[in-house]
């Protein structure tokens, strides 16, 4: 059975580690969102070289294991003379990897907006960037949100992989506790609860934002 006293006992240490997981995840999420939008727009560009480059990015980053990418960034990049601490390597890899997934989510959302929307804006005289910012992106937000949050949750869970390059995140801290105390069950229960708590917050945020974004929907 689970010894709940022990669960409570290790909570403070796990909560501190939770901060590390949150910090790394949020930094990577921010990076992936910006980069992902850029890649999505690149994919949709009429300039062939740009769209091809964006396609290639998604092809490689989505088609190889995150763990491999993490090792590549942490162990292989320093050989070029560019030193990275584990934190930066973790954030960078998670960000680069998730950007590939986000870009596909954004691209699909943008393409789901009927062509007539951009056409009407062009007919009024809006510039291409104005059309994107004022007409397309505000409408693309809603279809993008559910898969975006799904992918953000995946990012947070994937952040546990940075434990393999010695970032003291929630997962690594959990491992170091049970490797000393051998109370694997309690540690995994406590750690699971914390991951679940973080992802639950995101899910609640999603529901709230979806309601806010539906102001112009009828029925």
């Amino acid at each position, binding site marked *: 059975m689970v010894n709940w006293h022990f669960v409570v006992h290790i909570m403070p240490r796990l909560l501190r580690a939770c901060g590390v997981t949150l910090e790394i995840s949020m930094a990577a999420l921010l990076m992936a969102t910006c980069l992902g939008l850029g890649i999505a727009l690149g994919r949709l560009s009429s300039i062939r070289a740009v769209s091809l480059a964006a396609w290639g990015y998604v092809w490689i980053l989505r088609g190889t294991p995150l763990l491999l990418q993490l090792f590549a960034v942490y162990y292989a990049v320093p050989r070029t003379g560019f030193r990275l601490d584990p934190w930066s390597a973790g954030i960078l890899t998670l960000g680069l990897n998730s950007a590939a997934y986000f870009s596909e989510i954004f691209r699909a959302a943008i393409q789901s907006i009927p062509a*007539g929307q951009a056409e*009407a804006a062009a*007919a009024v005289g*809006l510039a291409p960037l104005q059309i994107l910012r004022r007409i397309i992106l505000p409408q693309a937000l809603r279809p993008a949100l559910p898969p975006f949050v799904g992918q953000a949750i995946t990012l947070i869970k994937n952040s546990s992989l940075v434990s393999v390059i010695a970032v003291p995140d929630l997962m690594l801290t959990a491992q170091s506790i049970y490797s000393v105390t051998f109370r694997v069950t309690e540690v995994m229960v406590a750690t699971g609860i914390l991951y679940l708590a973080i992802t639950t917050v995101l899910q609640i945020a999603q529901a709230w934002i979806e309601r806010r974004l539906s102001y112009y929907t009828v029925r």
Partner: protein
Amino acid sequence: MTVVSFKNVSKSFGARQVLTDITFDVPQGQVVSLIGPSGAGKSTLLRCVNQLDRHTSGNISVAGQQISPSCRQRDLMRLRRHVGMVFQSFNLWPHLSAIGNVMEGPMTVLRRPRGQAREQAEALLEQVGLSAHLDKYPGQLSGGQQQRVAIARALAMEPEVMLFDEATSALDPEMVQEVLGVMEKLAGSGMTMLIVTHEMAFARRIGHRVLFMVDGQIVEDEEPASFFASPATERGRAFLSRALPA
């Protein structure tokens, strides 16, 4: 003064030629109906006026601006400020209210201050009979109301010519009249208008001129009275006999 001028304009999508050697001039204040069987190139011709479709050869001039097949994005944006367009499917922006739709162009393109844009938009929406619906979203409006917002949105840019691409084709019959009424008022105010329509009675009553198109060419260019009474070509007669059931 000539507002729209086409000289030997052709357009192809890949290997498919959709407009062939189109030449016509529209003087200020003229209301031109473009009619013909579907696939004749009426909508494409209309969309060449504001370059939503680029022509492949020939010269187009609109409101004094020359448009060549190779001109740049900047020139297109300048052109489109002077041309209003109303679409078959309205294409209102659903995330903006009725008045937001009307204010968008003046605020974003012409950099008008919000208050001034709002005042103008209120006046325009009143003109099209929608004063009671300023803050409603497109999804809360009927088709006829949406199309009238779309007309106000186009007029907000103070265009020199208005294009109507089957503006009433997607409407329920009882809503067609309210939109045609607004268009008729607009024609009466001296607006230059190019109208692609299947409303023959409307073209006959409101139009000053009929361009009858078949297979990407203008085959008749007549006054409505003479075109509808006795088309000069066999194809015109055949089209009218189908479009105007006895």
